[in-house]
């Protein structure tokens, strides 16, 4: 991720509540200086207050917390970094220290409360390294004014170019008016936000423009995760059905990421104009419409590199699914089964949670195995069910044998393995989605 215009401020304090006012004013003023409006800065400050208070409750007062605020164009990010002993990691389960049946103690859940006032919230725990809590608060943008959408016409001649800000707004408007909501990511609704995303390097775009500047189509791409790029489009506006614009747009995107560390390119919102021969159908994910109805959309994928093959770990209950997928996708994998041979396990498992409230998505990831994996997962689900988040995902990295221990609990609690993303983590990642496959 190549964030241009990135500016960062940081503060290092002990996890002692005497510093709470200092911490909140640092984040509030920092956020305003980095471009948030007063109201949004206030939301970020509220979340900060919850998080810092929570850290003060669980850490000893001499432990240091580092807080970094940075601006990413369309958002401000506050990151809390500190080290944590292994035994204390449990505190970063969204659900720990309280009983989910107890309304009063639910209110104590600082992490969850913090997650509610920001667009994105992520708990990242690296064993032996520490915890990183990330809050992302976005700027507020007016939504697009559909009445001003100009007419598009077929282009006789075109070239592929990087857009300027006005062309980006136009692209957002045209996508909004030519494509169903289901396959348009939310950032097209806010052309201003889209411009800021591009300007900050968060995503990139290419346009098909006629010599007179008329816009015929476009494609947008961004990094999701460490090794995967996601593309949106190609979008076409009133072009001939056999136009070569989609191919040219996609090739531009592929050329731009060809020499990066991207191992895969995914398209989860395929348009009719997606040149399918560049991709493989990876599987389907359930997408939620604004009105709450669901649809199953095929996710398309292509590897960017030659697959060197690898060995992966699997729980016996996932083996069938993996075998099926590896054989369908012709992925060279040696499946190694993880067997429970009665060895002693740690008692408490840890899950990290990432909220993306603008997309209504929450993603769980295993941080540590434990005998309570099933209960822990169930508690998380109970809690999340109150948050009216539509999509719940669980990501399992097949490089880690202990990740697979969550398999029985996932299947029991209604998750379905949906997609194998080759090499998206340390190894392949299996994405589970809560619920059955939608029709």
């Amino acid at each position: 991720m190549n964030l241009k215009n990135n500016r960062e401020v940081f503060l290092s304090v002990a996890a002692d509540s005497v510093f709470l006012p200092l911490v909140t004013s640092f984040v509030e003023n920092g956020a305003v200086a980095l471009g948030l409006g007063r109201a949004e800065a206030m939301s970020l400050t509220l979340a900060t207050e919850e998080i810092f208070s929570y850290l003060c409750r669980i850490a000893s007062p001499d432990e240091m917390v580092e807080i970094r605020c940075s601006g990413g164009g369309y958002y401000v990010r506050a990151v809390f970094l500190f080290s944590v002993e292994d035994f204390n990691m449990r505190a970063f389960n969204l659900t720990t220290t309280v009983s989910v049946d107890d309304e009063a103690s639910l209110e104590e859940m600082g992490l969850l409360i913090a997650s509610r006032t920001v667009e994105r919230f992520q708990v990242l725990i690296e064993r032996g390294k520490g915890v990183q809590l990330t809050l992302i608060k976005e700027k507020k943008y007016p939504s697009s004014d559909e009445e001003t959408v100009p007419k598009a016409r077929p282009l006789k001649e075109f070239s592929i170019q990087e857009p300027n800000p006005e062309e980006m707004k136009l692209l957002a408007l045209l996508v909004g008016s030519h494509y169903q909501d289901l396959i348009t990511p939310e950032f097209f609704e806010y052309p201003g936000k889209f411009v800021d995303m591009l300007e900050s390097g968060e995503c990139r775009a290419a346009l098909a423009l006629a010599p007179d500047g008329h816009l015929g189509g476009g494609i947008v791409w961004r990094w999701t995760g460490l090794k995967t790029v996601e593309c949106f489009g190609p979008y076409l506006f009133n072009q001939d059905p056999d136009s070569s614009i989609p191919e040219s747009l996609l090739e531009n995107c592929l050329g731009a990421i060809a020499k990066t560390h991207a191992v895969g390119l995914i398209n989860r919102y395929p348009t009719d104009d997606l040149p399918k021969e560049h991709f493989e159908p990876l599987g389907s994910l359930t997408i939620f419409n604004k009105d709450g109805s669901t649809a199953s959309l095929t996710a398309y994928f292509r590897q960017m590199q030659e697959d060197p093959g690898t060995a992966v770990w699997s729980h016996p209950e996932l083996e069938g699914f993996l075998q099926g997928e590896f054989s369908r996708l012709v992925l060279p994998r040696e499946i190694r089964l993880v067997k429970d041979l009665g060895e002693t396990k740690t008692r408490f498992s840890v899950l990290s949670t990432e909220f993306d409230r603008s997309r209504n998505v929450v993603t769980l990831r295993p941080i540590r195995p434990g005998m309570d994996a099933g209960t822990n997962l169930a508690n998380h689900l109970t809690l999340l069910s109150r948050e009216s988040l539509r999509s719940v995902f669980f990501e399992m990295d097949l490089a880690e044998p202990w990740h697979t221990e969550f398999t029985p609990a996932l299947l029991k609690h209604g998750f379905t393995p949906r997609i194998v993303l080759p090499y998206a983590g340390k190894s392949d990642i299996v994405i589970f989605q809560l619920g059955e496959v939608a029709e």
Partner: protein
Amino acid sequence: MNAPPLNKLVPEHIKCFEPYIPSKPDNELIKLYGCSHLFRLNNNENPLGPPEEARGVIDRFPAARASIYPSGDAYHLRHKLAERSGLDPEQFLVGNGANEVIGFVIKAFCQEGDNIITADKTFAVYEWVAEFSGFEARLVPLVDFGFDDEEMLDRIDEKTKIVFICNPNNPTGSYWDEERLRGFLRNIAGRQIVVVDEAYCEFVEKEDYPDGIGLIREYPNLVVFRTFSKMYALAGLRIGYLAGDRDVVDIIRRTCVVYSVNGLAQEAALAALNNQEHINRTREMVREGKEFVAKELDILGLPFVHDQGNFMMIRLPMSDSLAYRKLMTQGVMVRTMTGFRFPNYIRLTISSMEAMEAFVEALTRIVPKGEKP
């Protein structure tokens, strides 16, 4: 001990740079892909193996010699190259593969803020070395699969130090004839170093193909690369070289790593040079192989791009990375072209008839007839 503060230690241009991950050893790939053998058609190697004389040198190499340092600057090989070309031995620099000499040239001429110019779709190492050394690589799109001389000239500015031309181009096989190369050099008028990479020159049978080394006298800013990896089939020993004007080479020598080329490679390379018969046999094999594959591709309805060199590019109606996996399960290893910015193309090394037949058979299985890209 604390972990080193990598964030502070590592320069920005290295942070965003990706290491090149070479493919796994054949036996590992065979195991994972579940095939019984492997035709290596991905690296433009010569399946005929080294010429007879070089083979002899390798077979007879006494183990005891492994304890002795080789000539630090490939003395005998340079003299031999000089004798063959009429240049001076000091006009040659031998490296651990042509890949190594790319680094020498860039180090010798570029400093902060400088740039190099090459094509967007060519051998990737010029761009790689420039970028991981912190210099801008300006990539000029190919036109009709060939290097675009006019646009390259246009992109030159006062910070441009080197222009890299791959002649013939890997992977398209296109080449500049003598007139075009001379025209380009005249236009540059000695202001920049012009590198002409002739890794595949021994495969070219066209009359109008320029012998870069022969032009050095007239154009002292011209540097030519050659390798023993391709035609001479010594890729495993890692040896290649550059030739240039004496003053230019004296500068490049300052950045070059001495003793980087082992003694066996030096001797085998020297012995390989004399064998015209080996070159003829290889060319014959490439001609036959190309003809056969081209005919089969026409039947399959698959477009392809080829001209000079022991390789061709084929356009598939599916992702090249998927085709790679499917071909690998049948024991055929090709090069995917997404990394060369030719998505959905594969590059095939022209090899023995047995390998070409295996390739066509495997390809036929994965590409349904009539499905044109």
